[in-house]
């Protein structure tokens, strides 16, 4: 019940934000901040209250489309809580990061942000496959509009590419869902889309591998993994800052979440057969993303490619099929959410100040904006995998897990951390260090508003890095109940 109310509240807040545009220019932003702030507080309260005996923080189950046994079933366990809390937090970051950027249609902009996030909360809590697909699509259209309306030069191309990739892979997943339900119906005579009922579906291995691939392609596209990653550099680069923050911080995680929650548990045997290939895709993504990031001259595009590399660790960890790998994947999801959101926010701030994303036109910016320089350095170092910060814990655990499963792959993937150091420091040098670019006369530094969200993200990374136990406990509860580990 409460989960449904939260989703409805976000949707309603979107409408209120749009309508409040008439009152004042600031009203829509405030509505968004309040909505996400309340959501964050609510997640914290749930977490402090603790789970019930079944490991759930909240649950509901209402009939929705009885003809097909589709239920409005929402549940929140440890992993969902973690992801929803991250969503709410990054919602605030997204709103702050686009504070001055949006001139036209401020109300509609906030409306779209709130609706994306409502869809995301639904994705992270849905316990009915059709409901999951429904929310999967709900988050798509507002995101498309965010890029198509408020994006940069190539917005038409980037937004269309993003939509087509996600939608077409989504259709494959829908087909797999229906085929799974059909197979289950054939065996039991019951039409249901319930996740828990379908977990027990007996599927012939020959069919299971195809259905698993239907899910996997949809999630791998969102993640993204090589070779279905090509939408990401365009979409991230062209999106307004808030859009990039949401895309990188949250939407990529829905892909990872889908693999952990659906692709693997629904088809354990098929996934185990496929594990080696998935780990290979993860490794290739790590190295390819790193190499591509290094060859970029565009600040934002570099960060976008680095996301592909980081998400490769998630794939590697999940398909290692052991507790360490899975834990590593989940910690990476959280840490990457913080570090990449911060870097995209930085890219947006620089673009707003210098009207360029080209690193060739930067250089020595530290002189003008020491606070921005310090923040960039911190998050670059975090993203590189400095011990003591969240990304290190996640990637280290993922590699450790992968090593037990396939040491060759783990060794090759470890090279990715070296590559990350190269492109990360290269980014830092070209933008903030080196000879100051004479064309940049002055640049406004971060103010209190920007610094406070940056500080919050720093705190998050240090928290996860120094004391990962909180995250591990939450995710571990889920990993145990999913029953995917041998």
């Amino acid at each position, binding site marked *: 019940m409460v989960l449904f109310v939260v989703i409805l509240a976000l949707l309603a807040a979107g409408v209120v934000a749009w309508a409040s545009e008439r009152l004042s220019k600031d009203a829509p932003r405030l509505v968004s901040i309040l909505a996400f702030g309340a959501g964050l507080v609510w997640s914290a309260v749930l977490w402090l209250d603790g789970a019930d005996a079944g490991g759930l923080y909240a649950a509901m189950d209402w009939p929705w489309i009885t003809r097909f046994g589709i239920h409005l079933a929402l549940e929140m366990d440890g992993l969902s809580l973690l992801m929803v809390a991250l969503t709410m937090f990054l919602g605030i970051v997204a709103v702050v990061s686009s504070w001055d950027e949006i001139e036209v249609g401020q109300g509609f902009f906030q409306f779209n942000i709130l609706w994306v996030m409502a869809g995301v909360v639904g994705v992270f809590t849905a316990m009915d496959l059709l409901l999951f697909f*429904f929310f999967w*699509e709900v988050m798509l259209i507002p995101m*498309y509009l965010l890029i198509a309306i408020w994006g940069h030069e190539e917005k038409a191309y980037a937004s269309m590419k993003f939509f087509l990739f996600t939608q077409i892979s989504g259709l494959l997943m*829908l*087909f797999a869902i229906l085929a799974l339900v059909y197979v289950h119906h054939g065996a039991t005579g019951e039409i249901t889309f319930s996740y828990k009922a379908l977990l027990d579906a007996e599927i012939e291995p020959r069919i299971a591998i195809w259905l698993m691939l239907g899910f996997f392609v949809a999630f791998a596209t969102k993640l993204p993994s090589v070779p279905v990653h090509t939408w990401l550099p365009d979409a991230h680069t062209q999106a307004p800052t808030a859009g990039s923050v949401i895309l990188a911080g949250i939407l990529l995680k829905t892909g990872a979440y889908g693999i952990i929650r659906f692709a693997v548990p629904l088809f354990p045997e098929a996934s185990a057969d496929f594990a080696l290939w998935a780990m290979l895709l993860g490794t290739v993504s790590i190295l390819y993303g790193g190499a591509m990031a290094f060859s970029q001259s565009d600040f934002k595009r570099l960060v976008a490619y680095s996301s592909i590399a980081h998400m490769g660790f998630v794939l590697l960890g999940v398909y290692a099929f052991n507790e360490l790998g899975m834990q590593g994947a989940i910690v990476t999801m959280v840490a990457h959410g913080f570090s990449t959101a911060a870097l995209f926010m930085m890219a947006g701030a620089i673009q707003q100040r210098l009207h360029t994303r080209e690193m060739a036109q930067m250089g020595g910016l530290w002189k003008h904006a020491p606070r921005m320089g310090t923040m960039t350095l911190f998050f670059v170092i975090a993203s590189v995998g400095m011990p003591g910060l969240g990304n290190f814990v996640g990637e280290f655990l993922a590699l450790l897990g992968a090593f037990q499963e396939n040491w060759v792959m783990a060794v090759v993937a470890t090279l990715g951390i070296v590559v990350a150091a190269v492109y990360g420091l290269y980014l830092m040098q070209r933008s903030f260090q080196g000879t100051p670019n004479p064309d940049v006369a002055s640049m406004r530094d971060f103010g209190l508003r920007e610094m406070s969200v940056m500080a919050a993200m720093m705190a998050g990374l240090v928290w996860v890095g120094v004391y990962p136990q909180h995250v591990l406990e939450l995710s571990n509860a889920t990993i145990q109940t999913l029953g995917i580990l041998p």
Partner: protein
Amino acid sequence: MSAAEVWALAPYLALAGGIVLLLLAVAALRSHQVAFWGAIATLAIPLAFVPTALGGGTQIVDEVLEIDGYALFFFVLFSLAAITTAVLSAHYLGSRATHRQEFYLLLTTATLGAAVTAGASHFATFLMGLEVLSISLYAMIAYPEEGHPPLEAAAKYLVLSGAASSTMLFGMALIYAASNSLAFEAAGDIAAGEHNVLVLGQAMLLVGVFFKLSLVPFHMWTPDVYQGAPAPVTGFVATVSKGAVFAVLLRYAIDADLLASSAVGIVIAVIAVLSMVVGNILALLQTNLKRLLAYSSIAHLGYLMIALVVAGTAAGQALGVESGLFYVAGYFLMTLAAFGVITVLSNETEDADQISGYEGLLWRRPAIAAVLAAAALALAGIPLTVGFFAKFYLVAAGVGNAAWGLVWALIVGSAIGIYYYLRIVFAMTKRPDGDRTHEGRRVPWEGLLTIGILGLLVVALGLYPTPAIELIRGLAGP
């Protein structure tokens, strides 16, 4: 004729009686107000008789009309679509025709023809209903006095539709020769045997029907007629005319066991796949919204054939009919919403049919843009709209009866379709840049209200389709 049959026939009788009164009223009092409200009353009053007719169960009136939940479902649907068309046309025709009164008369006769076609269980009513519908449509398409396109469209439709009708008539004659009866069920009694004359007759019948449904390769007329016809009439042609033909085809397929011949099944499947693919690909190339919707309707009718193929099998009959009715209802809503938007945005002389004219609409008229966006996304089959569940229903029916090829074609077609529907949405979201198309003109409030209701229904049924599904399940089963 028993009393029960009269009660079953009451909605049809009320509509026919209303038309006569309307004719007299229009002839005597040349008043637009009288004609308009008379037409609304003629279309609305028969709806009051529908519950009683439903209560009487299935009634076969004089062997020619089978009045059951199925026929009455279409009766209600067509009446509501006609009311929508009447409301939208009132303002639209104001600047295009000196005398608007006869238009409403034609609209009511077309509705009666469509309703009779949907209730037909006999070739006599089939043909008569269809011709009443088609002949009314020719005049409705050509109704505006100014401009060349409506006349061209009407002439094209008249000639091609006439050719299709005669092919169909020949087909009926051959079926009659084989079965010695004009009732649909008589053909079903001999369908199991390999009867060449019957198969030939059915093939000719299907050619005519596919023409009216504008399925590939009988689709050539569609874009020209859609473009040339006045916008509200195009909406009516796209929905009521196709809905009526689909209704009778579905009933014929079940009664006459059309799919007993595997050749017919293969032909229908091939034509369905061709329509989905060709319709969607040609829609990609359009810059005119009416032409785009024409090609999109070709694809949609292709999708709808899945319901026909499923309903033709003994195991899938109930699910096939259900999915077909739900799809038709959803398709009516989204198509009428799209053409409603075109109608209210059209100016005194030209239809708002260029996609480029919609640029920036979201910023100038957010409410109208929202309705068009909902309609476009529904036609694309995106969740939150009725279009998603309509497609979902078809896919579920197809998967449940192992029509895998058709389901794949639907998925591929939808994937292509997303691109052009999204182009409409993208055009509307463009930032305002001084172009002021559609601005400053009065938009009729009744038109706004109509498209508002349609838009809300598109979204509401996309969020909670259960009541509509239950209603249709209660009525299904021709």
